[in-house]
């Protein structure tokens, strides 16, 4: 069995002393789709930020695409793992939407017509054709969120890490997004953190986080119990 | 009939030339609760930012609590209107959660024991007792959103303007929040922008925004038609 993500006994404490991850054990197979659910502050974002080495394990072990997450392997890991941050303001830094979406592929050495196609396609997927010339600062929240998803899609990574992909999206585009994610899940390994329970229905496996710990994989009855208790 | 908010022919264009509001006509009675729904970029946030004079009408007229929104009346209007921003990062700027929640009442001249009580109560309402000493920067997205709601509740304004109050909240606390908003709507004038259609069910009136324009008030059949089309 090939695992692309393997965490065992993973722990993390923020510099101010907040214990955010206690003892995380998680294995994700290639092309598996995983959804993490759990209350605010339970550690979902902290866990996701480990998956491309933005945060480094304080305790325990983490392997991504078979490599230990360390300085040496960082480059390779990051070319395989695309992360969409929860707050889109954290993700966009170029002067225009076009440049932001082109940034990843450009760094991967893609140029000219191919680059243009990739950018256009990514913007098209998130429903923002023609937004290329706008400044990323000057968008509505939902538009920023969409651009930040496009910046990662344009890179075409194998593993997609999405922190609340539907945060702030309007209910009209949200439906399209769910379809998109469903499609991506067929061809990619996808790890999602979300409060959107409908999104978790699309995933192969759902885990419940609480207080820095990860539950066992939830089975159907466990999951519907949670869903019912929240209706 | 007493209207606390009266907008007629309101228009706004951002400095970079984006036309965000075209011709908004909206009247809100005292203690009425209003919910704006609409796609990303339709102008909801832009409209809400007018209600306490953060943005000033480029075209048309706007009166809040019977006063024209201009430099002279700004102070009075702002003491009546509490705004919760869409992105909590824009709202939190003090070194600790306690100071952030105390900022509004402190500016209103409240001190000592009374201040402490107000802050404690507001933190309690959003489920963050004991978070006072934490730095606002060191919270998860949902926790920040909760704090930003507390910063406005602690001021006890008559008119509450909430931009996506449930954005990023976990489904567990979201239920409590809906109850809280329901309660607030009984005693306050509340204007909400939201993508959360369940939230709109709690409001007296719902308006659909699209491309900088506001629809007429939606009636029950119109509303359920929208809801059904999005299921």
């Amino acid at each position, binding site marked *: 069995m090939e695992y692309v993500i393997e965490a065992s006994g993973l722990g993390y404490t923020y510099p101010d002393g907040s214990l955010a991850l206690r003892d995380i054990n998680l294995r994700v197979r290639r092309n598996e789709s995983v959804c993490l659910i759990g209350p605010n502050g339970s550690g979902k974002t902290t866990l996701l930020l480990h998956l491309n080495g933005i945060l480094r394990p304080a305790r325990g072990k983490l392997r991504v695409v078979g490599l230990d997450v360390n300085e040496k392997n960082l480059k390779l890991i990051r070319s395989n793992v695309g992360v969409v941050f929860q707050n889109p303001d954290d993700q966009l830094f170029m*002067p225009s939407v076009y440049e932001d979406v082109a940034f990843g592929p450009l760094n991967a050495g893609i140029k000219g017509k191919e680059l243009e196609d990739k950018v256009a396609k990514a913007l098209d997927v998130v429903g923002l054709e023609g937004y290329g010339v706008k*400044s990323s*600062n000057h968008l509505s929240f939902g538009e920023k969120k969409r651009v930040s998803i496009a910046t990662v899609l344009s890179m075409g990574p194998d593993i997609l890490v999405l922190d609340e992909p539907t945060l702030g999206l309007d209910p009209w585009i949200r439906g399209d997004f769910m379809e998109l994610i469903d499609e991506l899940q067929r061809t990619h390994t996808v790890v999602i953190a979300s409060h959107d329970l409908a999104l978790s229905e699309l995933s192969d496996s759902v885990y419940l986080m609480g207080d820095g710990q990860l539950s066992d994989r939830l089975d159907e009855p466990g999951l519907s119990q949670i869903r019912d208790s929240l209706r | 009939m007493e209207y606390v908010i009266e907008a007629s022919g309101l228009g706004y264009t951002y*400095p970079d030339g984006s036309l965000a509001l075209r011709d908004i006509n909206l009247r809100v009675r005292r203690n009425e609760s209003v919910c704006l729904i609409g796609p990303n970029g339709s102008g909801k946030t832009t409209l809400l930012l007018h209600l306490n004079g953060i943005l000033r009408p480029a075209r048309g007229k706007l009166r809040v609590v019977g006063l024209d929104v201009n430099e002279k009346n700004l102070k009075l209007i702002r003491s009546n209107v509490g705004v919760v921003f869409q992105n909590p990062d824009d709202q939190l700027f003090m070194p600790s959660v306690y100071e952030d929640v105390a900022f509004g009442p402190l500016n209103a001249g409240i001190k000592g024991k009374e201040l402490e009580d107000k802050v404690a109560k507001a933190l309690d309402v959003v489920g963050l007792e004991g978070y006072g000493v934490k730095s606002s920067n060191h919270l998860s997205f949902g926790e920040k959103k909760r704090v930003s709601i507390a910063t406005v509740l602690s001021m006890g304004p008559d008119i509450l303007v909430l931009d996506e109050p449930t954005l990023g909240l976990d489904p567990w606390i979201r239920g409590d929040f809906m109850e809280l908003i329901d309660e607030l709507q009984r005693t306050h004038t509340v204007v909400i922008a939201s993508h959360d259609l369940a939230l709109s069910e709690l409001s007296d009136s719902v308006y659909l925004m699209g491309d900088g324009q506001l629809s007429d008030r939606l009636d029950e059949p119109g509303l359920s038609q929208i809801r059904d089309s999005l299921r």
Partner: protein
Amino acid sequence: MHIPDGFLCTQIWTLMWIISIIILAYAIKKTNDRLGEKKVPLMGVLAAFIFAGQMLNVNLVVFGGTSGHILGSVLAAVLLGPYTASIVMACVFIVQALVFQDGGITALGANMFNMGFIGTIGGYYLYSQLSKKIEGRNALLIGAAASAWISVVLASFFCAMEISLSGFSPLGVSVPLMVSVHAFVGLIEAALTFTSLAYIMRVRPDLLKLEKI
């Protein structure tokens, strides 16, 4: 280039304090009541920006009196005008001295003058002359970059002179040492002034068109 307490003799530091207070008082008087709601946040953010820039670049080169700092005074002056920028720079150095002990209290007058006012007032004058002389669209950028370089070099020259006149280092040692290092540091300053302004020009050109006081 932040001179600590004890490195200047009494005559020099009092003289520099007097000069700086006169400039600052004039600047405050000149800007008083003319700063709208929009200007104060802009001043604050510029101060923070320059502050952060100076912090991130500490220890660029630590070599005999020359921890290479990026100053930002010309950038501030181009955006805000000479007097408003002087206030911004003064705030930066006050906070650095008080909070980070970067530069002393008695030497604060000298530091404000060397690294602040030379750039905001002298640099601005030079910039407005240069950008008039040079043709074309990039006049503003090139003018700003050039005066940024000159203001850094001048600042290091003054700093070295003050220390030497106080008798703590012979002119023959301090001036060549500091000026040569800062001729290089100034290039970085010029490049950063250039790119930041170019970016601002593109995304928020309205910020360049504010009233300059």
